[in-house]
């Protein structure tokens, strides 16, 4: 639909391009999380990721934790990392991995500060200040849109999401994929009812089977816990909004995927091996879902909502999109892109697509989202099981 276009981004030493230049203050353990937040209070433009977990995380949970935390550090929007933790073994492992991404990183350990959080805070502020000044030497330079990796999400959906907003997000994904970029659609349980349509677009039969397995596994998880997913979906809110069947609800949700070939199904937080359209098998809740895609490397997120949803990613600017006329009118400092004109028939979807694409390029080049302006946003570490 749209030919080549470019944006202005921060070119990283590992070859990726960021759309923001954040200092990440990353706490690898819950013990140092309050210190990370304290350092962040002194440097309010830094991004703080400080999950409450640390020791005693085992098995697949440990794998997931490393993938997510290192994924946040690797995200191209992060220009440098201040890593803090309690133990030298763990901090050493993490900082070595971050240096392999060729990312400037300073690490500080609570043990080395005589277990004094105040000393760690002071050293952290000093180290962060230097990292931030060095980062600010970087300037935006032209980059092709093939460097973009888009996350998608829908939250508090209504039929306007399925009819207009998700369909337009799908068109944007088609376009980014055609131009050599990357996109991911997650929330695997939302595919339930339309998984065959997605499977038909899989690049191989293996991938088609992965799509079906991802859905059936989540359905099984829900039913094993006694959730009546099969009998209560669509739920009462969906039904009141006008959605009658599971098929109808799922068709609206998968509109975000557009129409291109599906390259594969990623585990939560896992980076794709090549460009193109990917699915991610992950939780459906916005904070967890967006964090998984951001850890996988997405620099920007397209987020559709019907009734309104203020949650955004901390590290990937999130463009909030709604086609619900009431939501657009009342949540004017939340909705970045209004599509109510399209819903009401005053604007052709093709014109709205051009506007949305232009807004995406502007945002990649530095235009702020309302979520950034209002300081919304969080990145979270998902948990799979019990700790020791």
């Amino acid at each position, binding site marked *: 639909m749209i030919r080549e276009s470019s944006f202005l981004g921060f070119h990283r030493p590992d070859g990726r391009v960021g759309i923001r230049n954040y200092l990440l203050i990353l706490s690898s353990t819950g013990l140092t999380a309050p210190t990370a937040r304290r350092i962040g209070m002194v440097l309010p433009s830094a991004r703080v990721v400080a999950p409450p977990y640390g020791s005693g995380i085992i098995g697949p949970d440990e794998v997931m934790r490393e993938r997510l935390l290192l994924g946040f550090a690797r995200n191209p929007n992060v220009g440098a990392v201040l890593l803090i933790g309690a133990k030298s073994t763990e901090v050493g492992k993490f900082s070595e991995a971050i240096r392999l991404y060729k990312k400037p990183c300073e690490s500080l350990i609570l043990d080395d500060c005589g277990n004094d959080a105040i000393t760690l805070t002071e050293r952290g502020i000093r180290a962060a200040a230097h990292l931030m000044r060095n980062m600010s030497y970087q300037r935006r330079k032209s980059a092709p849109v093939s460097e973009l990796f888009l996350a998608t999400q829908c939250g508090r959906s209504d039929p306007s999401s399925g*009819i207009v907003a998700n369909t337009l997000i799908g068109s944007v994904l088609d376009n980014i994929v055609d131009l050599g970029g990357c996109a991911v659609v997650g929330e695997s349980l939302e595919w339930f009812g339309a998984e065959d349509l997605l499977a038909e677009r899989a690049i191989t039969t293996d991938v088609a089977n992965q799509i079906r397995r991802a859905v059936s596994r989540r359905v099984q998880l829900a039913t094993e816990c006694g959730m009546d997913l099969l009998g209560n979906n669509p739920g009462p809110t969906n039904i009141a909004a006008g959605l009658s069947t599971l098929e109808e609800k799922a068709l609206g949700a998968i509109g975000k995927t557009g129409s291109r070939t599906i390259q594969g199904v990623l585990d939560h937080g896992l980076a794709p091996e090549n460009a193109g359209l990917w699915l991610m098998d992950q939780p459906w809740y916005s904070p967890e879902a967006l964090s998984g895609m951001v850890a996988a490397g997405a620099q920007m997120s397209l987020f559709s909502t019907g009734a309104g949803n203020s949650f955004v990613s901390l590290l990937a600017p999130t463009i909030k999109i709604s086609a619900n006329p009431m939501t657009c009118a009342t949540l004017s400092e939340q909705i970045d892109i209004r599509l109510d004109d399209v819903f009401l028939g005053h604007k052709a979807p093709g014109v709205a697509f051009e506007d949305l694409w232009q807004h995406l390029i502007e945002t990649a080049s530095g235009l702020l989202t309302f979520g950034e302006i209002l300081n919304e946003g969080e990145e979270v570490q998902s948990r799979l099981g019990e700790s020791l």
Partner: protein
Amino acid sequence: MTHQKPPAFDAIVLHDTDNVATALHYLERGMDVKIKAPAGDLVITVCDCIPACHKFSLQALGIGFHVRKHGMFIGFATTAIDQGAHIHIHNIIGRDPQDR
């Protein structure tokens, strides 16, 4: 509140193989509804009240007929449905998920 123009249409058909339209605002029973459709705009009289974002039938459907939206199957008719009638959980049903 931002000023809003009245809708250009009362309802929309999403795909040319669909047999339902979606109401863009509340529709009164007996109203002649202006519908935007891919195959050309049309006017249908609705025989029920239709809440905003809910569906109504573009044609008469028999029991077991496929109801289509987004160009895809979304359910079977469980009763005879008149043209212009409200389509919802009282007269359509999806496939049994256990049979997938």
